């Protein structure tokens, strides 16, 4: 206590309070990931529905691994370049990426390894649940658009549950496009 007087202590405290108040804890969600994964998940869901209703041949399902690989490669490359170019990264941001990768990773594993339990439309619904969790997590940090998008994805899940089997996939796909990819577009527009 001998090294500093009350005026200096006040000055230091005020500086600390100012810095902490300016520590902007906004979540930068990265709109492009939402656009890519929203389109990819909707594409897969709608494709399954089209094959299920015999509208297109089953061989079209082989485009799924291609779409998934493209989305994964894009996400990894984009995340590396974004991270390298950033000048600061908040703790909230780190937590968000953990939630994002955990949720989507679990959905991916469920689809790839638990397909006998979550077969057909249930596998698509898993993606909708994962997407809703991610969107509502962002919404919890004050992003109103993410809240609305999360509610839209949940609404599409409920609507798909009560829709005739022949169109349930289209309803889920629409939720993914409007909710998830739509949120990504709105983030990109807000950023610009």
């Amino acid at each position, binding site marked *: *206590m001998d*090294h*500093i007087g*009350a005026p200096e*202590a*006040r*000055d*230091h*405290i005020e*500086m*600390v309070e100012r*810095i*902490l108040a300016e*520590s902007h*804890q906004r979540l930068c969600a990265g709109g492009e990931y939402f656009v890519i994964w929203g389109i990819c998940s909707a594409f897969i869901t709608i494709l399954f529905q089209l094959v299920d209703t015999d509208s297109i041949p089953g061989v079209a399902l082989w485009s799924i691994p291609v779409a998934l690989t493209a989305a994964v490669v894009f996400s990894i490359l984009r995340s590396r370049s974004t991270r*390298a*170019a*950033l*000048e*600061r*990264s*908040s*703790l*909230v*941001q*780190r937590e968000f990426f953990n939630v994002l990768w955990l949720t989507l990773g679990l959905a991916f594993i469920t689809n790839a390894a638990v397909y006998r339990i979550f077969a057909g439309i249930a596998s698509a619904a898993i993606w909708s649940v994962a997407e809703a969790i991610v969107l509502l997590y962002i919404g919890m940090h004050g992003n109103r658009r993410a809240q609305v998008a999360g509610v839209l994805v949940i609404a599409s899940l409920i609507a798909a549950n009560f829709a005739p089997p022949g169109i349930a996939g289209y309803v889920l796909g629409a939720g993914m496009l409007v909710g998830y990819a739509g949120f990504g577009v709105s983030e990109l527009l807000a950023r610009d």
Partner: protein
Amino acid sequence: MDELLLSKVRLGVVAELLNFDWIAFSELARSLDVSNGNLGAHLGKLVEAGYVDEEKSFVKRRPLTRYRLTRRGREAFTDHVSQLQSLLKTAT
């Protein structure tokens, strides 16, 4: 009180890093409005004391140095600020 954090620049650095995973050197210099040389010297002391971790890398062939607050630094900051507040309470 923590001798290291009696410096306003060093206290500012730790406060800046408190809510962040990491911050680049250039961003810290801009936020705190200090020269690169001055900031470098202060950061060197914080790194030496184990309050801050330094990570050097290259991005598009340009050097990038990032800093992250350690657990020790976080604890030292919390203790120091509560002592500053106690001092102010005593003075008033």
